[in-house]
């Protein structure tokens, strides 16, 4: 039940908009009030000019988006962070280009990258120091048991596969001959150095399904470097052991992306605990939430971060927001960021329990909301079906966008 305008709207003001608008939109204006009229068009084109209202988002999403005219769509996640992408490519290219790497030269590079990432907490310094110690020990080849004399070329190969330096070095600690126990000891020692207590270490090592010790260490190190303290790391990993299955590269990418969204340090710790899915979920799904909040709800970037928007599922967000919108209790702000009614706060929509949402924000009943959820689910199902069965000119991005419109 989409409101589709046969022609794209002009941007000259609401009189002009009504002039050109499809009859059903005019019907909405007359029968329901203004909000449907605005919202029906907002997702298509007005918000690509959204730089005026929500200046921070285009910085995250890439400059190209802010300048788009005429309702161009969301890019796929690769292009979302063009600056970061090109840096990464450069690094890999440079690494490939070199035939022989001086192992010792790598150390300052890694130290530099670690210090950049490290916040200035006491424990972090200790963790960093211990990692650095690992690096220097590795280079001298002394402290590691059974490690054969490494050739520089091996390190080049490691780099070529694009893994972080930390991981490379940790992998170097792999004991090639007697397997398990010495690797485990290394891990234990590393963890203790990072500031974990004996109890923590026991707990971490007994998480099931148990990952490879190096994987465990890699993930934990990453979290420490992100500024999460040992106790919360332990709690989070016990609660969500699936985090330990993540490839370290994915962790890198994801945490970097989250930081770009403004979620780092203290926030990250909270997210890690309450909604570890932000690490495991597909980036496309994060984008979907961000996009929905921004375009459909007019929630600006900093509010998104402040209200921990990402902890909510897109389903819940859509259900509650669309319900309010159709009730006439939520309006998508216009280009000037204005609405005719004061919109309920994000926390009163999403953070509260369903019962409280219904009684204090929606002023509706559980029965009606249940029916509404079923109807909405069916609408969305039919929307995506009709797109898959070939809306000729519809690009993949439009599919994503259309899913978010109601009628």
């Amino acid at each position: 039940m989409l409101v589709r305008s046969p022609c794209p709207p002009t941007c000259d003001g609401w009189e002009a908009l009504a002039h050109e608008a499809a009859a059903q939109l005019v019907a909405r204006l007359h029968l329901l009030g203004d909000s449907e009229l605005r919202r029906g068009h907002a997702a298509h084109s007005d918000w690509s000019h959204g730089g005026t209202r929500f200046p921070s988002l285009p910085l995250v999403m890439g400059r190209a988006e802010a300048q788009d005219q005429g309702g161009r769509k969301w890019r796929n996640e690769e292009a979302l962070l063009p600056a970061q992408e090109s840096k990464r490519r450069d690094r890999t290219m440079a690494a490939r280009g070199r035939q022989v790497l001086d192992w010792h030269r790598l150390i300052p590079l890694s130290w530099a990258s670690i210090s950049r990432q490290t916040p200035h907490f006491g424990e972090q310094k200790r963790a960093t120091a211990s990692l650095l110690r690992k690096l220097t020990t590795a280079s001298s080849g002394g402290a590691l048991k059974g490690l054969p004399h490494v050739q520089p070329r091996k390190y080049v190969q490691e780099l070529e596969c694009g893994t972080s330096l930390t991981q490379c070095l940790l992998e170097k600690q792999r004991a090639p001959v007697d397997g398990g126990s010495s690797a485990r000891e290394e891990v234990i020692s590393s963890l203790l150095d990072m500031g974990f207590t004996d109890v923590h270490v026991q707990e971490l090592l007994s998480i099931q399904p148990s990952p490879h010790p190096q994987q465990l260490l890699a993930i934990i190190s990453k979290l420490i470097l992100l500024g999460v303290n040992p106790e919360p790391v332990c709690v989070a990993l016990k609660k969500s052991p699936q985090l330990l299955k993540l490839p370290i590269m994915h962790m890198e990418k994801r945490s970097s992306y989250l930081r770009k969204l403004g979620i780092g340090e203290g926030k990250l710790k909270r997210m890690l605990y309450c909604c570890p899915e932000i690490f495991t979920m597909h980036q496309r799904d994060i984008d979907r939430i961000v996009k929905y909040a921004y375009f459909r709800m007019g929630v600006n970037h900093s509010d998104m971060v402040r209200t921990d928007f990402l902890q909510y599922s897109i389903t819940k967000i859509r259900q509650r927001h669309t319900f309010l919108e159709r009730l006439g209790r939520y309006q998508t702000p216009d280009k000037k960021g204005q609405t005719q009614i004061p919109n309920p706060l994000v926390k009163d929509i999403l953070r509260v329990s369903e019962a409280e949402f219904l009684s204090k924000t929606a002023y509706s009943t559980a029965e009606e909301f249940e029916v509404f959820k079923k109807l909405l689910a069916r609408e969305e199902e039919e929307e995506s079906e009709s797109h898959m069965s070939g809306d000729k000119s519809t690009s993949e991005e439009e599919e994503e966008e259309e899913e978010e419109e109601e009628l």
Partner: protein
Amino acid sequence: MTYSVQFGDIWPSIRVSLLSEQKYGALVNNFAACDHVSDELEQLHARDFVNKAHSHGELEPESGQTAAPSPASWACSPNLRCFTFTRGDVSRFPPARLGSLGVMDYYLMDAASLLPVLALGLQPGDTVLDLCAAPGGKTLALLQTGCCRNLAANDLSTSRTGRLHKVLHSYVPQDVRDKSRVRVTSWDGRKWGELEGDTYDRVLVDVPCTTDRHSLHEEENNIFQRSRKKERQMLPMLQVQLLAAGLLATKPGGYVVYSTCSLSHLQNEYVVQGAIELLSNQYNIEVRVEDLTHFRKLFMDTFSFFPSCQVGELVIPNLLANFGPMYFCKMCRLT
């Protein structure tokens, strides 16, 4: 907007329902002669709301009446069976199929559309006029009652009369159409006072209106098109003229039901009051509005009614019973 003022606190629940998928009823085609249709529909967990209303009515006799015949004013038109899913059930009916005798087994419509026909209270042998008949759902229902000695079905628009023909052909066997002397015309409904004054026992005036729900979802033929702005503004006047014509075409003692699918009291109560006034002032004809309170109570379990109509009844959309909007008012021409 005016609706939020008109409806106040209940407007949000109406609004969300208007913007969400509506609910349908399956009007059983008596001419398809298949009893298994009812069984099939019941297997889907749908129920005949008309039957439910009648048994509901029997449980609560009005003011001590026992075996007294139901007053003509609130007797329902007979032989109508219409299935709906229960409150809160969002199931959909499968599309109608061709039954035996070459006609379709049921007709999917907004169940609230049946109420004006039920309220009209047809009796066997009635001469009936459906003044704005297209696209034909209510016309079909009138025929289903089996009461029509004559049925005149008219709609100004020839394209819409085409749809009416199609409905009749798909649902009503030729012999029944002949027997009921169904006559389809495309004349101007406003002229009926002159054309066939004082002729009909029962008249249905289901006027063109802003078709609120339809206008929010469909682009095609939308009355809110820029090109139809004037037409839209003239609607209340047109509606008064059509209702007046319908009243003039009624025999003294006969009944008229006026109906719209709009929420606007400018198209509903105002029109009823305007037409009655017009008939009184210009023609010296007295018209009495019939009280449909009892009728409304029969159907309260299935539909959501607006409690504060000055005259007539209004079915308002509600997520649990997403039928309507449907306004209807019954009148008796006294003189």
